[in-house]
């Protein structure tokens, strides 16, 4: 089993609206997968399908190496937190946890208390009803709820949504700790790439229901790091020239732009070498990008593609 979770052109339609459009994601065991997309990009719908709350209109998925149908019997190994945590407001945190544990046939109250302590809901909150909780406390309880069945996989939908900066840091640290200490594979969605980049090991960018890119953390760092962005008159020939110069870390975008991630101080030498080979340099610049700018460039690019398609 190469991937713990994998989708194959998974699609969800609501009438004429396609919320998720032939999406393929790949998640390895132990990874924290950051699913990034704007509001309405299809993140929640995708997670709902993976959580068994919604049926795909087309395509399929496999979890723990088992097909969608077979996954049904392994669902107690998956912890799910979709949108805001679903909690009974007139009950305490423990009582909410107890409900889920009873369903799973568990009868270990001390484990539930341990989980509450783990997520930072200690004895001081013991007697409080959930309706008296702050948003951050509710999110932490929501995460504790997902851990009740000793899951191997967590599906967390926007767990930092609406939290203050302090709350965001706490939830982020909690998720990182869970992954490390309990060896849980986590699929987490958010519209804030900056936040996910602090914990995720792999990313998928979802835009208007489509997966427009999937990359690892090191690839993300590379893409956002300093680089030479070169626009030659002939990119194919230019690649041969820069390879002859011993440059190996480069990437060709849109068949016209070459990003070079090494020897950033040698831009003059590169232009000269290209000129010697009768290749014009139409533009050259040393660039680096903030994560959010990178994300915007990706989704902005997708918008442009859509517009072109319409034309």
């Amino acid at each position, binding site marked *: 089993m190469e991937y713990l979770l994998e989708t194959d052109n998974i699609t969800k339609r609501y009438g004429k609206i396609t919320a998720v459009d032939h999406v393929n994601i790949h998640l390895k065991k132990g990874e924290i997968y950051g699913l990034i997309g704007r509001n309405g990009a299809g993140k929640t719908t995708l997670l709902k399908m993976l959580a068994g709350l919604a*049926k795909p209109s087309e395509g399929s998925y496999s979890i723990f190496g088992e097909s969608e149908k077979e996954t049904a019997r392994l669902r107690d190994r998956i912890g*799910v937190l*979709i949108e805001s945590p*679903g*909690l009974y407001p007139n009950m305490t945190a423990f009582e909410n946890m107890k*409900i889920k544990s009873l369903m799973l046939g568990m009868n270990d109250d001390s484990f539930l208390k341990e989980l509450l302590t783990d997520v930072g809901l200690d004895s001081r909150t013991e007697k409080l009803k959930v309706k008296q909780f702050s948003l951050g406390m509710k999110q932490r309880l929501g995460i504790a709820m997902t851990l009740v069945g000793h899951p191997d996989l967590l599906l967390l939908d926007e767990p930092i949504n609406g939290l203050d900066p302090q709350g965001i840091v706490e939830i982020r640290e909690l998720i990182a700790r869970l992954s490390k200490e309990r060896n849980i594979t986590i699929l987490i969605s958010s519209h804030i790439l900056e936040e996910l980049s602090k914990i995720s090991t792999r990313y998928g960018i979802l835009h208007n229901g489509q997966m427009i890119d999937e990359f690892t953390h090191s690839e993300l760092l590379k893409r956002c790091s300093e680089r030479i962005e070169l626009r030659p008159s002939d990119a194919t020939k230019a690649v041969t020239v820069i390879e002859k110069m011993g440059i190996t870390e480069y990437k060709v975008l849109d068949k016209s732009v070459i990003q070079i991630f090494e020897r950033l101080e040698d831009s003059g030498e590169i232009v000269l070498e290209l000129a010697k080979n009768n290749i014009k340099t139409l533009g050259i610049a040393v660039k680096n990008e903030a994560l959010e700018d990178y994300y915007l460039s990706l989704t902005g690019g997708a918008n442009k593609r859509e517009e072109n398609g319409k034309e």
Partner: protein
Amino acid sequence: MFNLIKMNLYRMRHAVSTWVIAIVTIVFAFMQFGSLKLLLDDPFHMFDAGEGAEMLGFSTVGGEHIITTLLHNSNILIIAAVFVVLFANAEHKSGFDKNLIGITNHKWKHALARWISAVIGMTCILAIGFVVLFGLCALFMNSFSFGSAAAMLKSAGFLYLGMVTFSAIFFFFTTLFKSSAGGIVASLVISLGILNLIEQLLDLAVNKIFSHPAYVPSDFFFDNAYMTFDASGAGMKAGLVFVAICLVYLALSVGGSMLLQQKRDVR
């Protein structure tokens, strides 16, 4: 399934609405006792001799009458409707279903377990009402005699089956509308006999088309069948017809709820 029922009963025990409805049932039992006492014992000498008994149709209160007074009553139906609707919809309303439904392999089990739990809760609440009313009558009614246990069990059996069927219908409408308001409105329309008007119109239409038909539509509407059923005096044939109607509505309502739960996405 057993775990799901256990979970639902735990939730029921910790829900404020359960205890509020239990208290309302006790108050209702007191009110029923008050009216029986006024009519039969007549402590304020408001009626001529035997007038109260004539109005009620019996002169001494026994177990069978207590059952009929308690269960054959639109007020208790409304209490049951509110209880079932609130309980059935709480999981969806709070969003708690998102924590649970994905982790079971058959979603329909949730609907079945929730309905069974609602019936258990409703039975407990009715039992409380019965114990209170029975206790009050036994202690404070001059005209109380236990009566025939067999007659009491016969009435209890028929009317309890009717209440269980009502609970299934209320449950179905709550599942269908996914809202307490929708469920309560549908349940009140049934409990308050508002459907009777439509049923009477249907009967009239059938009578116009077929002169002297052997059956009329209202015989097969559950609310009408329940309210007009004479639980203590019913013979074998009438009893069997009533049981058959109950079972058909029960199966359709529970089956429909399970199907809705299985087929629908959780939103």
